């Protein structure tokens, strides 16, 4: 099988899996409603959705556009089913590609990204399953106040390390979006709760500054 055939079959099989996942996801509320003969009032669902859908549907669109080029075909299909893209799937795929010295968009990059996202998904699912089985023993430890600061600061702890790797390689490109984002968040701290919406803003600033530097042969 050559590269083109492999990509085509990955796309076809990925679509098969992801649409099956849609069915599985939808089956969950349906079987619960059927089993307990308890269909909710449409108005209650609509009201509940109105509270979260506008922001999460927007973030959903942004995530697909942003992460698909980074994760490749197999990685994207899997990551969008298993979730936790920002804190797990994208960093693990990029870290694995960095360590393997392969580029996004190449066949090697596609393979390493898929391996990373799949491993991440399997390990997470196993840890959650084990955690659920041992919940009585684990909950008091994980839920303890002394460990709370650690988990509250997981994103800065993750992105600090990633930043060193990527910003040191491309500091000229990183400067403008980084400064802009720091200023925006200092001026409007409440935006922290909707950081997903600011991701495309960061990307637009980053692409504009990269294009500017590239055109002036500064990269």
């Amino acid at each position, binding site marked *: 099988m050559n590269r083109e055939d492999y990509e085509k079959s990955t796309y076809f099989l990925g679509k098969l899996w992801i649409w099956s996942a849609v069915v599985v996801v939808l089956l969950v509320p349906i079987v619960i409603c059927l089993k307990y003969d308890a269909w909710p009032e449409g108005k209650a669902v609509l009201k509940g959705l109105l509270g979260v859908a506008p922001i999460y549907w927007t973030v959903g669109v942004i995530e697909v556009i942003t992460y698909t080029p980074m994760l490749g075909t197999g990685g994207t299909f899997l990551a969008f089913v298993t979730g936790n893209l920002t804190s797990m799937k994208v960093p693990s795929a990029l870290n694995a590609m960095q360590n393997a010295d392969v580029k996004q968009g190449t066949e090697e990059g596609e393979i390493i990204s898929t391996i990373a996202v799949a491993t991440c998904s399997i390990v997470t699912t196993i840890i959650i399953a084990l955690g659920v089985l041992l919940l009585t023993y684990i909950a008091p430890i994980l839920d303890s106040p002394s460990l709370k600061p650690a*988990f509250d600061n997981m994103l800065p702890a993750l992105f600090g390390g990633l930043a060193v790797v990527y910003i040191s390689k491309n500091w000229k490109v990183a400067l403008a979006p980084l400064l802009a984002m720091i200023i925006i968040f200092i001026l409007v701290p409440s935006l922290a709760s909707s950081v997903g919406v600011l991701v495309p803003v*960061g990307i637009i600033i980053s692409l504009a500054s990269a294009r500017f530097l590239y055109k002036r042969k500064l990269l």
Partner: protein
Amino acid sequence: MDFNPSSSFMYLVAAFVIVFIIAMASFFLVRAYRRGLKIGMDKKMLKNSVLSTAIFTITPALSILIGVITLSKFLGIPLPWIRMSVIGALTYELPAATSTANALGISLSETISDPKVFTAVVWVMTLGILPSIILAPVLMKRIQSGLVKIKSKDSKWGEIFMDAMFLGMISAFLGMVFSGVNAGLKGMIPIFVLISSALIMGVIGLLIKKCHMKWLETYALAISMVGAMAFACFVTSIIV
């Protein structure tokens, strides 16, 4: 009918979803691994990718488990287990449950015992995340062909374009860390954590380059993250 959100039926539903996720991930893992070997990629490198990712994943997975614990207080265990295994994140699931509870005028201070309230929460959680799954296959080809166009026009710019996209994303999350600076020293804790993580990664980078400890690459991201999280506990105990 008596309703218990942690009934054996709910566990059965959860088990079905978990098996599906494991099957899908294993399918892609085995397929990519085999393909890697077939096109001549180094077996050791492929294994290292699995190992490095598995180690990195442990800590974020524990934070997801905390999400399951948080949600289980009013939704029982199986539903949060399902939701956090399929495209879920606490940052979405908790507001979704709260929004539905507010719409129904109920409190989430104790376990939901009304099946209609429970199913309303399940539907809101499900419909809220559905577009993310549906849009991926719908938009993928268009996004990828756009990228191919950019790369075929100018391959160097294509590479910079990809790096710039990631740097734009990372900038948003790095900028977010500064959102608490107006709150004084306490609000600076995430910045200290960020810096500590960066410093640890810098030291690891030096060890890899200067002391030829290449094996550290596998663990670098996990070490910097866990080290900075431990520092977060330390610095919080001093400041707060």
